[in-house]
């Protein structure tokens, strides 16, 4: 992956983190219910784990597909799926509905996995993932193909960078809202990130289609 892709992974992690539906709002609510900040912080770890698993599955699927499918076919397929999912999310207000307020580590991990997956958080990374070395290797035969180990490290690093960025942003927003800003923010500043999200998915689809390299 090139520099742009790494920064993209980082940026999208932050973008996912800032979405209240991905975690920080739940963390704040748990802190308020328990009346302690440690409940806010404690919720962030399973949320990051669930998010990483959701992202990781998409990363793995795309990496495997890169071994099997011609580059252009994969790129167009990803673009179509992304754009289609974005259009669906634009018109559908359907939302995951699972779990409640008394949750443990496992519940929160699964919840975060469901939220990330249902929102297509991993899919949004597709245009960046397609710039991974497996793709480059087939495009530039004169380079030595990346070894399996190098590839795995690279994939793990991509998931790690994204998740770390997600974790930090979710955590900072959660603590600031819990400690300082309060919930009035929800009424004033909570514009429809899901709608913006669906547009982001469509943009990612278009980018995937045209962003050859």
């Amino acid at each position, binding site marked *: 992956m090139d520099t742009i892709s790494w920064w993209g992974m980082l940026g999208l992690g932050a973008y996912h983190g800032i979405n209240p539906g991905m975690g920080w709002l739940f963390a704040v609510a748990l802190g308020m*219910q328990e009346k302690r900040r440690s409940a806010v912080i404690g919720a962030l770890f399973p949320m990051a784990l669930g998010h990483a698993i959701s992202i990781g599955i998409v990363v793995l699927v795309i990496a495997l597909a890169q071994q099997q499918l011609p580059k252009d076919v994969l790129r167009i397929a990803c673009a179509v799926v992304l754009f289609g999912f974005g259009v669906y999310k634009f018109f559908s207000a359907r*939302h*995951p509905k699972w779990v409640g307020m008394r949750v443990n580590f496992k519940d929160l991990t699964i919840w975060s996995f469901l939220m990330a997956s249902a929102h297509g958080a991993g899919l949004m990374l597709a245009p960046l993932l397609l710039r991974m070395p497996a793709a480059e290797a087939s495009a530039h035969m004169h380079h030595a193909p990346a070894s399996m180990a190098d590839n795995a490290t690279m994939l793990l690093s991509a998931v790690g960078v994204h998740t770390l960025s997600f974790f930090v942003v979710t955590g900072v927003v959660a603590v600031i809202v819990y400690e300082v800003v309060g919930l009035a923010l929800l*009424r004033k500043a*909570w514009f429809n990130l899901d709608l913006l999200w669906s547009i982001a998915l469509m943009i990612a689809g278009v980018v995937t289609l045209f962003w050859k390299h």
Partner: protein
Amino acid sequence: MLQQWKPDPTFYPSPKMAIEAPIEDVAYVAAPRDDGNPDAMCVVDLNTASDTYGQIVHKLELGVRDEIHHFGWNACSAALCPYAPHPYIERRYLVVPALRGSSIYILDVKENPKAPKLVKTLTADEVEARSGYTRPHTVHCGPEGIYVSALASAGSEEGPGGIFLMDHYNFNILGQWEVERGPQSLSYDFWWHLGYDIAVTSEWGYPAMIENGVSLEDLGERKFGHKIHIWDIRHRKNIQTLDLGDDYQMILELRPAHDPTKAYGFVNAVLNMNDLSSSIWTWYKDGDGWGIQKIIDIPAQVPENPDDLPPALKDIGMIPTLVTDHILSLDDRFLYVSCWGTGEMLQYDVSDPFNPKHTGTLKIGGITKSHPHPAAGPVSGGPQMVELSRDGKRLYFTNSLYVAWDNQFYPEGANGWMVKANVNTEDGGLEFDPDFFVDFGESRAHQIRLQGGDSSSDTFCYP
């Protein structure tokens, strides 16, 4: 469906914020009838600056002898709950079940809040086939969809009654809610402690016990409900049944604390079989389980002239208290209790939920009493369905309980009315607004919902 860019402005994360909501302009009042004309959803103008203040400004006619009764919103502040957030849904539709007819009407109030439109009808057959229940009653907007309770099983008209779920986007009935109902069979109201993943349900009677007037035979045999049930919402499982004892018949309205961190609530027992008194009980989290304790007894009264008593009460010679509804202010401080039999609206400070303080009384109507209203003189019926503005300053109430029961306890006639009281939220106390008396004429007047939300429409996931 195209989504909104901003959360619905009537959604509030916490009860504290909802208290700051703007003053309501409009009330929706369910107006069933007994004369063969259709029931109607009435719109009452609440804007004190308006020329039509305190008047019915619109009537939307529904079915004949449907007994529209309780109703609720398609969506409310529960849409902000963090585990299933969907704040861009609109509070736009009233979900209006017919307690006798069993159909469910969906009314759209967005275009003109003063003239709701009927946009969908779920027929009784459809409701029964899809939910497995009949006689739908309470409607609450929850984080996952619309919850509706019902008195009985479809077809049998006996137990078990229960709860079914509706989709909050297209109003399709999704089916029975309960997975393990345990000993629960009688049904009536339900509400919940979302902060604890706990629901609570109460018990009234099966259709045959109520639809021809209260069955005195069944009452004598103590067949009406005397329990409440505690449910694990996540597993839809009855985890505990709290029995008030069969001296207490008909356990109705559930008013959990609005603050989601508080694990207690209030419920009314309509009739103590020993002395015809009514009582208020507090249920509360007690270690790993739940407990319940009586906190208020409201005695029956002796009539001035026992000959004035309706036939159902002649032999008994007393005026039963008949507490049939109550409402808790959004700050969890004041509880307002309707004594339908004795014609009193009582206000209690329940800041300490186990040590209530009586802080105010209004008298109006009452069996043999007909206490007057300042604008209308003596009235029939008594205080019944009660609703409170979100800021806790304006109390509205009506006088009809259930058409067949109105006829039984107020046989001289129970023309509908709605009144308003202004509340002293500092020290307690309440007084009638002398300019507000809504005369429903031959119609009865039952539940009131206030535009944008009130003190029994929304649930909050944040303290």
